[in-house]
């Protein structure tokens, strides 16, 4: 019974955090792209545009939601549901940290026993394979959306996008197989536990440092395949060129359109989390606690607070003279909280995990602002004549290294 209630609470927390993270990922993308392009991005709705996602959500919810008359009604209606469903499910198997041990609380009539739960919704033995399978099923959402819109541009966009996604699933699976060979387990918790500890006392035992150069190649292959799986630049031809015309989400308005975008950002988050877990060591810090890695989050928060105060000296808007110091004080308070050992200990793994996943998401957005896109035939040729042989050769050589070691 306790397990049931705890699971429901965990699921609710994870769902809430994920959906908020999706909205703010879009904010981050707009700001970072803007700064790369030497402009500022949204800054009117809330301080530095932080309430912009809220405004976007309100707009999308209240728009008129119509169904065109020429579409195939059942599949047109189902397609965004399928896309979002298979994008949100993989979060259930991703671990965010070690165990959370809550002490028992006894306050009069309220009696909550001591709870020890893992910071993961469920630890499947075949976690990695589960994520691969569900990502493969997500292709149906895109294909059905393109086809049911009964419109040649949508059909072509949907077919191109789904062909791209299934072509890059193969190098992605082969790139995932190389660290699995080294770590010898398919469950995510086992994978992260295999990356604990440090080489030579200071170099973290992340997978990219084990089995030396081949896992770095796997990491690069995985990142490239992940860009293609989530239809992001430089592989976003089905999304961008057809955006000039329409693309597979042409006939969708308001919340259904938002559902497709949510599915895309959720795929990005899932893939970043998987890359962090498989290659970058999950929640383990990059240098040992003996050298002070537990103080790094507090240092970063304190630095952010100092930055806020510096900006408050010459603010962009007059009332920032008041709001920025308030935000600065909030950052200092957070830094103080992270210094308390009782709070920091369970939170530290989550912070490291989030930091690494955010770095990969930042690289996603950075690449979007920097690189031009592939033409469709170049994209498919790249997958089948370059990535697939390199992934197979890499797997073979990693197998040799594992067998000889």
């Amino acid at each position, binding site marked *: 019974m306790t397990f049931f209630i705890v699971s429901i609470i965990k699921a609710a927390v994870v769902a809430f955090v994920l959906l908020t993270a999706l909205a703010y990922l879009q904010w981050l993308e707009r700001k970072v792209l803007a700064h790369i392009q030497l402009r500022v991005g949204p800054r009117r709705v809330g301080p530095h545009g932080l309430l912009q996602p809220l405004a976007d959500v309100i707009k999308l919810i209240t728009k008129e939601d119509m169904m065109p008359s020429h579409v195939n009604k059942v*599949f047109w209606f189902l397609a965004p549901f399928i896309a979002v469903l298979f994008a949100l499910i993989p979060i259930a198997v991703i671990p965010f940290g070690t165990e959370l041990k809550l002490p028992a609380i006894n306050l009069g009539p309220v009696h909550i026993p001591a709870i020890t739960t893992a910071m993961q919704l469920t630890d499947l033995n*075949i976690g990695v394979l*589960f994520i691969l399978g569900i990502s*493969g099923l997500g292709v149906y959402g895109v294909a059905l959306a393109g*086809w049911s819109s009964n419109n040649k541009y949508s059909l072509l966009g949907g077919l191109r996008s789904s062909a791209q996604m299934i072509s890059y*699933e193969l190098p992605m699976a082969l790139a995932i197989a190389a660290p699995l060979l080294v770590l010898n387990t398919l469950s995510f918790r086992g994978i992260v536990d295999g990356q604990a500890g440090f080489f030579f006392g200071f170099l973290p035992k992340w997978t990219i440092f084990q089995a030396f150069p081949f896992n770095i190649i796997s990491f690069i292959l995985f990142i490239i395949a992940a860009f293609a799986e989530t239809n992001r630049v430089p592989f976003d031809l089905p999304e961008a060129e057809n955006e000039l015309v329409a693309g597979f989400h042409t006939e969708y308005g308001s919340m259904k359109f938002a559902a497709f975008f949510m599915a895309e950002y959720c795929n990005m988050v899932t893939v970043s989390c998987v890359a962090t877990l498989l290659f970058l060591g999950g929640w383990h810090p990059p240098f040992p606690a003996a050298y002070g890695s537990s103080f790094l989050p507090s240092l970063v928060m304190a630095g952010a607070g100092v930055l806020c105060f510096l900006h408050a000296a010459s603010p962009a808007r007059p009332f920032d003279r008041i709001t920025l110091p308030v935000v600065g004080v909030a950052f200092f308070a957070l830094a103080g909280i992270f210094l308390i050992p009782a709070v920091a200990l369970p939170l530290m793994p989550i912070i490291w995990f989030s930091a690494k996943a955010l770095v990969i998401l930042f690289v996603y957005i950075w690449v979007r602002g920097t690189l031009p896109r592939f033409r469709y035939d170049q994209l498919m040729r790249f997958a089948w004549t370059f990535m697939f042989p390199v992934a197979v050769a890499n797997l073979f050589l990693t197998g040799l290294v594992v067998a000889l070691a």
Partner: protein
Amino acid sequence: MIFAAIAVVCGINLVVQTHPISSALSLVGVMGALAALYLLLGGEFIAAAQLVVYAGAIMVLFVFVIMLLNAGTEHKGHRTWAKYAGVPMLLVFLGIVASLIANRLPASGNVVFGEFTKGSPLVFGRALFTTYLLPFEVTSVLILIAILGAIVLARKEID
């Protein structure tokens, strides 16, 4: 039992639907129900492999081809006496098959979910590469022949 019922319903839907895309998606539903059954019986690797390979790749290609060929709705022809003889004949056939199976296989009790623990990838991979190596290699060659055949057949069109 629920998943078996879902599989049967999707299978019947597959045959009954007039549009090929609905049939293909019903087949995906059958694959999904089968994967859930494998999972309940303890073969977790097979369940995941079923989802990845069958429902996630093969059926996607089926759906592609149906979309590209723009297959339209089928028209039901005049069903004369066949529509009254169809379902009873099906039931008789299934009854014969079920009685044959029940007679040949040893009597077993109810299936206990969770008692089969040898479905992990380790056991699976080991069995595939030692005991069942020959069927594995032969199947690979068979798939290669099928791919070559498909390429040759498709190439004959372009002269």
